[in-house]
């Protein structure tokens, strides 16, 4: 037979070995593939661990530097990193928005108090920045723990599917972790982040005009634009803070008894791959992220008084949104102002009142 080499014993052995190899690959190919995947996940996990430790270190160092605590804050920081929040029961969803709002308020107060205890020497702005820094560290800690959980589970069960799921989403998880890591540094230093595009535009519009405080952690300035009266709202800077634009918009509308011609919201919007950073787009609706409480409140008030709402967004990806603001985003503020003026000219009459809200984290942006 031609399949089996005749004569030479060694080549016969080699031949048999090669066939055996094929069988091995056929039967254990999946297992080998799994080990490759485990190694890949493991390498990422080490990197995550490093990022997490680095984040914790930066947070502690910043607290020591700014807060001048008498005792070592490390133990308290470690406890802080493990904080969790339980969202309200949604089995009967009526009224859940206000329950969630309450929970978030309590959380915010609790975390800020914690920061004040950790860093007694810091002022209001620094407390906000430190809180943001710690929250980024908290997010990193959480990502690390979840990935580690699935990694260990995968190794314990040796199930291809557990490991495969983890390995498939890993690039996205790593991207997010890296974004949080650079956010953490930005927060620690008080640098503006990409998410601050909205507040930056609002600050540009209101700069030089008198501001007053609004609930909660927001400021408003009354600015004449193109013959209209504009109420410009942003979170109060320059501390790391998103405020509660929902409550602020509600307050202004109630103060004017609903006589508002238009609400324009400016926010950083998630871009799709292929779109340019800093591109400006226009649309309809309440442009605001977060848990949805503010969006709900704004929409409710708008419906009550039949006020139209427009949105202008600045495109950026998740990494840009939480890392220091890129030049393209900073430069696009003027383009946004042009667009906003267009909307005002086209959608309102002279003498009307409009509300312009710059949504986002105002860290590093004053007014």
């Amino acid at each position, binding site marked *: 037979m031609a399949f089996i080499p005749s004569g030479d014993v060694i080549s016969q052995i080699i031949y048999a070995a090669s066939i055996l190899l094929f069988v091995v690959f056929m039967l254990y190919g999946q297992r080998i593939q799994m080990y490759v995947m485990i190694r890949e996940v493991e*390498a990422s996990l080490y990197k995550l661990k490093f990022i997490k430790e680095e984040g914790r270190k930066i947070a502690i160092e910043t607290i020591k530097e700014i807060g001048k605590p008498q005792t070592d804050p490390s133990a308290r920081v470690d406890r802080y990193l493990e904080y969790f929040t339980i969202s309200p029961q949604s089995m009967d969803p009526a009224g859940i928005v206000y329950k969630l709002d309450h929970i978030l308020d309590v959380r915010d107060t609790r975390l800020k108090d914690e920061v004040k205890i950790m860093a007694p020497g810091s002022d209001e702005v620094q407390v906000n920045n430190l809180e943001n820094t710690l929250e980024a560290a908290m997010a990193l800690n959480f990502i690390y723990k979840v990935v580690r959980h699935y990694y260990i589970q995968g190794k314990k069960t040796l199930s291809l599917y557990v490991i495969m799921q983890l390995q498939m989403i890993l690039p996205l998880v790593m991207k997010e972790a890296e974004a949080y890591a650079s956010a953490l540094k930005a927060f620690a230093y008080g640098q503006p982040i990409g998410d601050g595009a909205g507040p930056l535009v609002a600050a540009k519009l209101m700069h030089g005009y008198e501001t007053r405080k609004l609930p909660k952690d927001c400021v408003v300035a009354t600015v004449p634009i193109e013959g209209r009266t504009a109420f410009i709202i942003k979170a109060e800077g320059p501390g790391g803070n998103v405020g509660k634009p929902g409550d602020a918009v509600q307050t202004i509308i109630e103060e004017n008894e609903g006589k508002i011609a238009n609400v324009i919201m400016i926010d950083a919007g998630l871009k799709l791959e292929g779109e340019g950073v800093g591109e400006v787009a226009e649309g309809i609706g309440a442009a605001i992220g977060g848990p949805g409480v503010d969006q709900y409140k704004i929409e409710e008030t708008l419906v009550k008084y039949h006020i139209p709402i427009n949105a202008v967004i600045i495109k950026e990806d998740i990494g840009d949104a939480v890392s220091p603001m890129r030049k393209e985003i900073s430069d696009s503020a003027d383009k946004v102002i042009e667009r906003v003026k267009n909307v005002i000219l086209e959608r309102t009459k002279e003498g009307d009142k409009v509300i312009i809200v710059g949504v986002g984290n105002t860290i590093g942006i004053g007014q």
Partner: protein
Amino acid sequence: MTENDQSSTTASRISTYMLTIVLIILALSIMALLFAVSAFVVGDQVVAGYLLIIGFITMGLSTYLLLQSRKRVANLKIEAPKIMTTIECIKCGLKSVREFQRGDYVYKELDKCQKCDDKMTITAIYKEVKEKEKTYNV
């Protein structure tokens, strides 16, 4: 820490185990290729062909595995991008750019302008992205 040490030792055990297997396969595939050549010289072309195919496939597979499982040198560093602060005098337009310092924020008022008596203001803080992003023509 004990848990971590344990996991890292198991990891290295798996990797050396894997590595030996892959290396043995690689050696076998090279031998198969050598035998293919000798079979060809002898004149047994069918056998030479088979050995050649087997040799190449196993070699390809094992090098693939070797490259895949090689621990990529992880870039373990949180990169710190350069942050720039633009300072402007709103009255006379004098503009300067310097590196970010802690405490800077947009619309912070700084010292007096060198030309006129107005105060300088920070008008922008941004990150310079050096490398151009890869663009896809679609």
